[in-house]
């Protein structure tokens, strides 16, 4: 079994092909468990591969496997080849591990869907693309995965393509699944435009797109600050802002919540959206040569984290709170990358995958119990009805808030500490405020959903906005219940990971950071020395931020505090700014979409229609008038027309040729 890396993406691909081709004819259970089996098998192979990797001496921890030459033209060549090092090892374990859990959960969650096979085919296809992305040994194959996950995201956001809205029991208007899907793909394409240009510039700079050649070339050929590297890394980062939903391209992710909740958990929280983080970390050799780009990454990350957190404060839809939280947490990861704390960024990527997948799946369990209704204003009191879901959601919330000793605490703390140590005190301060907001909106969601008294009635009928197309859920009255084992077991496993996953990366003052050590051969970073006092101080500050945020949430939402309403009326402009998401969608519509449509219309109607066709038709009429006198020869009958033309050509040729 020396060559087995290719199996890791290939197994889910096989699952996707089988389910796509004949899934509809398979028994439902077989279709679903086939998909689960393929991802689980892929996880098994991943574990074996990582064990093989760890068996290698630390400075030689790379398994490189080439399948064939994908494309070769002149000096350009790219292979289908896989590259397993500690960084991709973390990624494949997260993708297949969390992926397998979410697949299992989906068996229960999607049980009432008719298009079962289509769902699982797309999920498996996603696993294939994501694993190709993180295992590729070159940027072109990475791009295949990169675009592939985008397609799967498109397919799954638009899973309920025939419904105008998936919102139930709410007066809020959201984009339809189909429009959300299109929007997601197009916005990502704008980012990919940059990514592709970056890859092209990379080839002309290094003569190769393989990681080995590029990184070696970068280290030997360029000094820190070389302009070409700065441009290249900025272009690549543009792709990351699309895929990982950063300012200014983050607008697609909240709308992506129109997809089924397991999709939100797997693709739009745990894995795909972290592809940009992975890509930048993978390219760390290049980024470290470009301090300007790193500064941009840090600022964009911090800004995104902050902006998304402010929007999350005022959302009523539980999934959208989590979506903006994902945008915000991705911002943290980029902040980490921007201050060269690459392994801290990847650490947060991993813990975030655990706790955010958990939060989404638990939110899905709530939707399952509440006939898809997820407007928090109409929830409440659910802790009694679904204790397991409540307990696991709480674990996820504590991890997200950075409550001490939960996984998110360690990873976020490492980011904040390294950001501070790197000298980015301003960005650090903003990040601390963001952490406070995070704890606030997270516990706002916990309390509104599970705490207090129910704001719904047993047996109440809630209706979907497009009821006639999607009848079934709303027709039944509300009878919330705990999720079935196939759903809560994955929740429990993720809860364990979210609670204890952080202990592999302890801060210096508490123990050993095994995670950093494992990634050391990849990033080879000098150890940043921070004094113990400073480290304790920083831990204290970030803990305080989390606790204060939680405390405010309790004060505001336990019982019947009027504080939220009063704040809203004191600062209506701020509330409007946040609730309208800073009017960014409207701005793009006004500044890009409308002028674009206007211009396209001018091209079509005026340039094509009036000018070009005007000239052509005018010439045509002239010919026709001349032809009037020869009317008997062509009665408008095409065949005669053509024959005459042919004869004409031959005559012309003959005349010209015969005259030497």
């Amino acid at each position, binding site marked *: 079994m020396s060559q087995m890396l290719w199996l890791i993406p290939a197994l889910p691909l096989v699952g996707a092909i089988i389910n796509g081709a004949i899934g509809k004819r398979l028994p439902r259970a077989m279709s679903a468990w086939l998909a689960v089996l393929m991802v689980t098998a892929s996880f098994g192979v991943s574990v074996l591969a990582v064990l093989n990797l760890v068996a290698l001496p630390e400075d030689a921890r790379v398994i490189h496997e080439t399948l064939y*030459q*994908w*494309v*070769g*033209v*002149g000096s*350009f060549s790219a292979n*289908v080849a896989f590259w397993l090092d500690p960084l991709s090892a973390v990624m494949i374990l997260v993708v297949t591990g969390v992926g397998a859990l979410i697949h299992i959960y989906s068996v229960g969650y999607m049980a009432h869907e008719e298009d079962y096979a289509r769902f699982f085919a797309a999920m498996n296809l996603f696993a294939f693309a994501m694993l190709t992305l993180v295992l590729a040994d070159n940027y*072109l194959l990475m*791009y*295949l995965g990169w*675009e*592939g996950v985008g*397609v799967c995201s498109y397919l799954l956001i*638009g899973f309920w*393509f*025939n*419904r*105008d809205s998936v919102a139930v029991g709410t007066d809020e208007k959201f984009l339809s699944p*189909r*429009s959300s*899907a*299109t929007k997601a*793909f*197009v916005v990502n*394409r*704008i980012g*990919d*435009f940059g990514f*592709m*240009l970056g890859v*092209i*510039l990379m080839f*002309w700079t290094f003569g190769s797109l393989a990681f080995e050649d590029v990184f070696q070339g970068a280290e030997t050929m360029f000094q820190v600050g070389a302009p070409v590297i700065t441009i290249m890394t900025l272009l690549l980062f543009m792709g990351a802002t699309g895929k990982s939903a950063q300012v200014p391209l983050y607008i697609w992710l909240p709308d992506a919540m129109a997809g089924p909740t397991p999709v939100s958990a797997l693709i739009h929280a745990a894995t795909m959206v972290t592809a940009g983080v992975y890509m930048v970390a993978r390219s760390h050799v290049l980024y470290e040569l470009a301090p300007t780009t790193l500064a941009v990454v840090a600022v964009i990350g911090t800004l995104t984290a902050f902006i998304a957190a402010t929007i999350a404060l005022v959302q009523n839809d539980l999934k959208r709170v989590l979506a903006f939280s994902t945008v915000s947490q991705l911002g943290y990861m980029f902040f980490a990358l921007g201050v060269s704390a690459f392994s801290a960024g990847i650490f947060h990527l991993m813990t975030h995958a655990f706790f955010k997948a958990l939060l989404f799946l638990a939110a899905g369990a709530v939707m399952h119990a509440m006939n898809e209704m997820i407007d928090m204003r109409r929830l409440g009191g659910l802790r009694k009805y679904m204790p397991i879901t409540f307990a696991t959601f709480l674990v996820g919330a504590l991890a997200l808030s950075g409550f001490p000793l939960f996984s998110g605490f360690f990873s976020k703390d490492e980011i904040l500490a390294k950001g501070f140590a790197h000298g980015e005190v301003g960005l650090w301060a903003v990040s601390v405020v963001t952490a406070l907001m995070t704890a606030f909106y997270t516990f706002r969601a916990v309390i509104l959903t599970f705490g207090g008294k129910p704001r719904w009635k047993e047996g109440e009928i809630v209706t979907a906005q*497009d009821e006639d*197309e999607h009848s079934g859920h709303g027709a039944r009255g509300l009878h919330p219940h705990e999720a079935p084992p196939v759903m809560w077991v994955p929740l429990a496993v993720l809860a364990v990971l979210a609670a204890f996953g952080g202990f592999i990366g302890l801060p210096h003052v508490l123990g050993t950071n095994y995670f950093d050590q494992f990634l050391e051969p990849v990033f080879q970073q000098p150890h940043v020395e921070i004094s113990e006092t400073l480290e304790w101080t920083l831990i204290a500050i970030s803990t305080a931020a989390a606790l204060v945020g939680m405390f405010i949430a309790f004060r505001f939402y336990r019982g019947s505090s009027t504080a939220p309403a009063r704040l809203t009326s004191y600062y209506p402009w701020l509330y409007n700014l946040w609730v309208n998401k800073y009017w960014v969608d409207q701005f793009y519509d006004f500044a890009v979409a409308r002028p*674009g*449509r206007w*211009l*396209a219309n001018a*091209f*079509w109607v005026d*340039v*094509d229609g009036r000018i*070009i*066709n005007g000239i*052509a038709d005018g*010439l*045509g009429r002239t*010919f026709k008038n001349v032809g009037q006198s020869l009317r008997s020869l062509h009665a408008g009958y*095409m*065949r005669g*027309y*053509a024959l005459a*033309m*042919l004869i004409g*050509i031959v005559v*012309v040729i003959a005349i*010209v*040729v015969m005259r030497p």
Partner: protein
Amino acid sequence: MSLPILSLLIGLPFVAAVIMALLPRGNPSLLKGWALAAVALEFLLSLYLLFNLDHDTSAMQFVENYAWIPQFGISYTVGVDGLSFWLVLLTTFLMLIAIPASFSEINERLKEYFIYFFILEAAMLGVFMALDVFLFYVFWEFSLIPMALIIGIWGHERRIYAAIKFVLFTMSGSLLMLVAILALYFVTGARTFNLLELQKMVTPASIQPWLFAAFALAFAIKVPMFPLHTWLPDAHVQAPTAGSIILAGVLLKLGAYGFIRYNLTLFPEASREFAPVLIVLAIIGIIYGAMVAAIQKDLKSLVAYSSVSHMGFIILGIFVFSQQAMSGAVLQMVNHGLSTGALFLIVGWLYQRRHSRLIADFGGLQKVIPTLSFFFLLVMFSSMGLPGLNGFIGEFLILLGAWETNPAYTVLAALGVILAAIYLLWAYQRVMHGPVTNDANKKLPDLNRREFILALALAAFIVLLGFFPNIVLDPMQASITELLNQTTVAGLLK
């Protein structure tokens, strides 16, 4: 003397046409059966090239040479190299798709219909194989008439207007080319029409730009390049499905091929000199075509404008004189033939079911006809250059090669990649997604067996070339290297 494979390939459709003419008119299934058998036989015959082509030489292969009008140096010379034989295969393959695609759509005057298609096939193959400029011109003109007839007789509402427009546009270009061909005969002093002989001659610098322009005009109309493209939407919208498949799949390639085979090799200095002009027009076409495609209300018209955009990539790839870009351009000719052929096939199927091409008349079809929708989805992603499907590597190589000449070309052309996602996804969303609001859409039949086989054949190549583009790229490398050498050496001599 080995097998005269190329003459067989050109001759077989003519024979098929004659036999078709002799078959009884009253038996449509016999006519259809023979038509299918003939194009299938032709396709199988063309596979001979695939298995016998020497990948390591840039020389013309399978060459046949017979005197035709020796007093004027006109000969029947045909041959293919690693570049043009792909276009031959594309032609025979798309004919194999187009003929059965007509079976349920065309019911009137079947005999003539198939005869015109056979003549068209022979003419198109002749254009790709001719190594005598005069012979080339004869085939070139010959390809025009059957297509005009197919549009004019079996087309939709405004078929006569579209057919005449098609003829007028193309004719005005090719007449000037004829003059240039004759001039070539006289001014070079070669007194021959043999392409390979003419390539060795140096056309005087004073006259080269004029001859280049005359050829370029004919080819630019055919491609079509902005601003000479307006015949294309009309021709496509009015043409029957099979006509659109061949028009987009093969006829447009005649123009692109002409640029490579004639402009570059006969007028290398002028090619270099005028390259920026053609590149700028190509890039305008990429963006303009994509933008206009986005606001079309008629699906066929949308696909037609998307062709303007895609063909712009191909012209860009040709005129940046790069191994990667040129390879990408030829690969993209094959890809565009498959993808756009498939798109027209899909629109044709939708039209047959609904008797409409208007996007607004559809909606929610994915629920009603899932298999057709999935095929549409696949082709759509192929057309927007998704990695893993055929369209990506070609587009990428063009953008890659263009960067070496001028990064601005790449940046601007890559905007077309974003726009392609917009016009295709938005169209797909409106046709296939959403609730089924129109009662007429509620009970449409999904793909039947015959349609499914056609879809599967196209889908297979779309995926195959996505993962193994080297199949197409390898055989053409020697020819492209040689081609670029010719233009470079000529540039240095000057």
